[in-house]
């Protein structure tokens, strides 16, 4: 289940000067289709921390922001169309079983609490930080072979396998204890502290048409710096 996160709100200004904001002072909301009368101006204003809390009390999701205020004039008689779009994305992400952080799919270690999947040796009764990892490859005909891949490239084992001559694919990993290897080789048990899942997130934007001009107003939080 996903809900849109509002970081800015629209305010319709009628020709008589009265205003209809997306969110009332108590945080209750209006939809873009609630008002179909004449409009003189439309504003997009950032959500304040106080309003964000009130919006949340009504079950919606809001974040205070410092997004730039936008202002559009609607000339009398000009065609005016305004609606919101939702873009639901299912994206692969990693999550931490300890602190609940959700982070980039390609990152194996939780950036908040540094939790990561560990290998446990039952004989040593200890976690092994540097297990002996054998990557097992297989062909569609079930032929298998073992290769060594350096630890920091292990997550790309499937891609490395694809680039080997023949029809090799990644099959599995065998992990062994480096301490026990000298006398009594033993396999290790994976202790999963992090996992992979799909996030479900709605991104919102507004489509605004005034006369022959069309605007797309984003309500995204950008994760990278905008160049000056």
């Amino acid at each position, binding site marked *: *289940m*996903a809900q849109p996160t509002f970081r800015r709100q629209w305010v319709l200004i009628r020709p008589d000067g009265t205003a209809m904001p997306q969110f009332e002072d108590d945080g209750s909301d209006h939809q873009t289709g609630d008002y179909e009368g004449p409009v003189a101006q439309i504003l997009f204003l950032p959500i304040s921390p106080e309003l964000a809390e009130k919006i949340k009390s009504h079950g919606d999701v809001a974040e205070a922001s410092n997004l730039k205020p936008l202002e559009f004039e609607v000339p009398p008689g000009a065609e005016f169309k305004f609606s919101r779009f939702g873009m639901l994305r299912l994206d692969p992400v990693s999550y931490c079983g300890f602190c609940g952080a959700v982070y980039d799919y390609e990152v194996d270690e939780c950036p908040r609490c540094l939790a990561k999947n560990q290998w446990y040796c039952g004989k040593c009764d200890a976690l092994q930080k540097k297990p002996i990892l054998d990557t097992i490859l297989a*062909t569609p005909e079930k032929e298998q072979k073992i290769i060594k891949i350096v630890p920091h490239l292990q997550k790309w084992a499937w891609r490395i396998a694809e680039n080997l001559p023949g029809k090799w694919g990644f099959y599995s990993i065998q992990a062994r204890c480096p301490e026990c290897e000298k006398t009594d080789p033993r396999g290790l048990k994976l202790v999963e502290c992090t996992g992979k899942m799909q996030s*479900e997130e709605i991104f919102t934007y507004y489509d605004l048409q005034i006369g022959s001009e069309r605007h797309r107003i984003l309500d995204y939080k950008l994760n990278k710096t905008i160049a000056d």
Partner: protein
Amino acid sequence: MAEVATIYRLYGAGGTKYSLAGKTGRFCTQDSDPGLNNPCKVPPTGEVYYSYRVTDCIGITGDFNQVRDIYIHCDGNFASEWGLDAGNGGGLFVGVRDAGDHGLPIDVVLHGSNQYAQAGGTPGTTGHSIDDSSNGHPYYKDETEKVRNFDLCLANSPLLIDSGPYTDDFYSKAWVLSLKIVPTATYGAKTPKSVIVTYNIF
């Protein structure tokens, strides 16, 4: 309160809806949530295998005046990133209609009819292609185009699933996807990828 949206996958003879929230929606060779069971297979030379087709829809609840124009698209890299060998015909394909919405009606009240058809095939080996003349999807197999490479459904050319409009809580028409796996496809686990659903809400 604004809308709450969820993607559902339909399984079983009756098309029971299962939420994909927090899950990875896998392509496999069985008609139920597979976990890691029954993965897709690369066929021997001279054969083509398919995943069991999946039937997905979006459900929206909450306060709104109208929702309409539901589209899906992707980044266009399913075949290349999953090693499906598009040059030899492999890829991810979506069912399409010759006219109107491309989505599959799955609810008599909301869509006028229920055209859901359970996915079939040989569990653990291959499913039936959507466009197969005998075992294909009844709603798509007799159309002219039948299926479209989903990698062609991009942000600037999305696929119209359901024009709506809906004025109350609803499930949309569904999109039907299936992997076509050729003998030259690469073997192994694949990185998850995104399907993006866009809707217009008033």
